[in-house]
C-alpha cells in the first residue's frame, strides 16, 4: 500500500492538521476548525481521530487503538490495520508500550505518562449542541463564556431526577475557561483527564480539533451541594477481580444472568497474568 504517503495523508494536509493541533494546545478546550479530509472510512467511525493520528505518528512510534476499552473490537482492528498498512508503524495492545493511543469512548485504566499521546475520536465536539443546535450561536456562547444554559440544564436534571442525568460525555471546564465535551467516555473516566500525557480530540465530520496539554485542569461541572460523582457498577471484575476499573455488563445466559468484566481488556489481561483472579475464574479452578 505504498502508493500512498506515510500514514496516508499528504504532507500538506498533515501540516494543516498539526497547525490546528498546536493552536488547540495553545488554547486548551477551544474547538479549532480544520479542513477535515474525506478518509477511506466513514464519517462517524473515527475519521477525526485517524487524521490526528496520521498527523502525529512518526515511523518510530508504537501505536495502540482501543474502542470501548478493547483492542479487538472490530473498528479498533480496522483502524489499527489501516495504520499498519499505510504507516508500517509498530502496533501494540499494551498500554504502557504505546507512544500514541487512539481511543473511542474510554481512557485506559493504567495511568499514562509524559511520553504518550492519547487521541480521542469525537462524534459531536460541541458540549452545548443539544442545548442549542446552531453552530453560529454556540460559537458566540463560548466566546462570551456564556455557560448559564448548561448549568440550568444540570440543575433541571437534579430537580427532576434528583441527580445530574448525564452519565457519559459529561461536560468539563478547562482551566476555568472553556466548557468542553470529553467525547462519549463514561463520567467514570473524567477524573483521569488531568494527566501527564497530551490529549488530542478529533471530530472529522464536524471539522474540529481540540486539545489538552499535560496536567491541564479539567473540572467536571457540578454544584456545591451536588458534587460530581464518577460512579461505576458496584461490582468487581469477574475475571481479574479488579475493584477500581470500569466494567462492562455481559449477559451470559437466557435467564438474563450477567457478569461484570473490565472494559479495558489490556488492563484485565495484565492483572490476570500477574495472578489476580476474579470470581468466575476462581470457580473454574475449583
Amino acid at each position, binding site marked *: 500500500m505504498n502508493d500512498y504517503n506515510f500514514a496516508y495523508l499528504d504532507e500538506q494536509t498533515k501540516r494543516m492538521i498539526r497547525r490546528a493541533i498546536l493552536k488547540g494546545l495553545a488554547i486548551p478546550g477551544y474547538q479549532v476548525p480544520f479542513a477535515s479530509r474525506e478518509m477511506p472510512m466513514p464519517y462517524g467511525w473515527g475519521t477525526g481521530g485517524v487524521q490526528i493520528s496520521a498527523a502525529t505518528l512518526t515511523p518510530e512510534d508504537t501505536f495502540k487503538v482501543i474502542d470501548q476499552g478493547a483492542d479487538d473490537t472490530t473498528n479498533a482492528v480496522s483502524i489499527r490495520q489501516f495504520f499498519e498498512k499505510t504507516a508500517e508503524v509498530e502496533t501494540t495492545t499494551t498500554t504502557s508500550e504505546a507512544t500514541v493511543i487512539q481511543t473511542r469512548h474510554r481512557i485506559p485504566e493504567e495511568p499514562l505518562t509524559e511520553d504518550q499521546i492519547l487521541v480521542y475520536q469525537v462524534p459531536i465536539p460541541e458540549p452545548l449542541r443539544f442545548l442549542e443546535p446552531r453552530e453560529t450561536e454556540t460559537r458566540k456562547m463560548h466566546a462570551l463564556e456564556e455557560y448559564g444554559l448548561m448549568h440550568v440544564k444540570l440543575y433541571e436534571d437534579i430537580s427532576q431526577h434528583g441527580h445530574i442525568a448525564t452519565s457519559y460525555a459529561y461536560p468539563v471546564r478547562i482551566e476555568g475557561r472553556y466548557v468542553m465535551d470529553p467525547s462519549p467516555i463514561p463520567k467514570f473516566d473524567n477524573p483521569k483527564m488531568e494527566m501527564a500525557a497530551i490529549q488530542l480530540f478529533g471530530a472529522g465530520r464536524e471539522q474540529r480539533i481540540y486539545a489538552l496539554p499535560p496536567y491541564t485542569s479539567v473540572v467536571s461541572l457540578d454544584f456545591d451541594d451536588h458534587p460530581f460523582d464518577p*460512579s461505576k457498577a458496584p461490582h468487581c471484575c469477574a475475571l481479574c477481580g479488579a475493584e477500581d476499573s470500569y466494567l462492562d455488563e455481559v449477559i451470559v445466559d437466557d435467564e438474563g444472568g450477567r457478569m461484570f468484566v473490565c472494559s479495558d481488556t489490556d488492563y484485565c489481561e495484565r492483572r490476570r497474568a500477574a495472578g489476580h483472579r476474579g470470581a468466575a475464574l476462581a470457580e473454574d479452578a475449583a
Partner: protein
Amino acid sequence: MYVAVKGGERAIENAHAWLAEERRGDPSIDELSVAQIREQLSLAVNRVMAEGSLFDPDLAALAIKQARGDLIEAIFLIRAYRTTLPRFGSSEPIETSDMQCDRRISATFKDVPGGQILGPTFDYTHRLIDFKLAADGEIPDAAEVPTDPEPVPHVTGFLNKEGLIEEALDDEEAPRDLTREPLELPADRALRLQALTRADEGFTLGMAYSTQRGYARNHAFVGELRIGTVPVEMDIPELGFAIEIGEITVTECESVNQFKGSKTERPQFTRGYGLVFGQTERKAISMALVDRALRWEELGEDFVGAPAQDAEFVLYHGDNIQATGFLEHIKLPHYVDFQSELELVRKLRREAGASQVQEAAE
C-alpha cells in the same frame, strides 16, 4: 464461560470475502463490465460524479460496480479517492453560453433564439414497463440533424436586457473551496452553491419541494434548463495563456422567481441557479430552487423559519457522505456509554421506587 470477545480481525476478513462473493452474484451470469455501466447506467454514473465531485465516468462506473449499485457507497469511494489527488491548479470558469446543447428548454417563453430542444428526456414517456427490454430488443435509430454551431444564448439574458431580472453580479473574487477549508458560517452564495452541487439529490429535492409547498415559497419558473458539453480551459503559467484541457457534460438550470421591488428599486424578477455535473436535471432544478430560498437575506425578504431558508440547516445536513457515516456509526459498539446509562437508570428507578413506597406509607 464467557471469554472476552476475540477474533474481530478474522471476522472482518471473512465479512470482506463474503461481500466480494455477494457483489459478484451468481457466477453463471455474465459479469458486468465497467463500460456497460458507464454506457447503460449513465444517469447513475452522472449522479456519482456530481455528488462525488469528480468528473470521471469510468471511475464512477467502477465505483458503482464495486458498491453493488449502492450509489451513496459509490459516491463515498469517489470522494475518498478524490481527496488523495494532488491539486495542480484550477480551471477558468466554464462558459455555459458556449455549450453544445443536447437539451435546452425554457418554460417561460414559447420559443426562444436557439430553439427548444427536448433532447433525450423521460419527460413525455409513458411510464409503462417495457418488456421488450427484457428480451434484448433492437432499438430503432433516432433521427439525426446536424448540430447548429452557433452558440445558444441564455434565456435570462433577454430578460436582463430589459432590466426585468436582477443582474447577476460578477464579484471577480475567487470562491472559497469547500473541500480545502472548513465550512464556516455565514457562507456566501458561491460557497452555498458549491455545497448544493455536491449535496444529496434526495435531500436537495425534498428541500426544493418544500419551498413549492409553501415553506418559503418563491414561485420558481424554469427560465432555462440546458444540458450539454462545455470546454474546460486552464491557464498554463509556462505558456502564459489558457488552453483547453477537456470537455465536461453539465446541467444548468436558471430559475426565474417572483419579483420584488422596494422604494428605491422597481419590481423585477430574481434568480436561482443550479449547475451540476452530467445529465442531472432533477438535481439542477432542485438546486436552483434551494439557492433562491437561501438568498432571502440579500433580497430583503423575511425569514419565515422554513428549513430551505436556513443556510446552517441546509449546508450542514445536505452532504450524504457525512450524513450516512454518522447515521450508520450507531452500528458500532456503544456498550460503554450504554453501561453508564444502565447504571444511571437503575439508580433513578431505585430511588423513584423508594419514594413511591414512602408516599404509600404516608
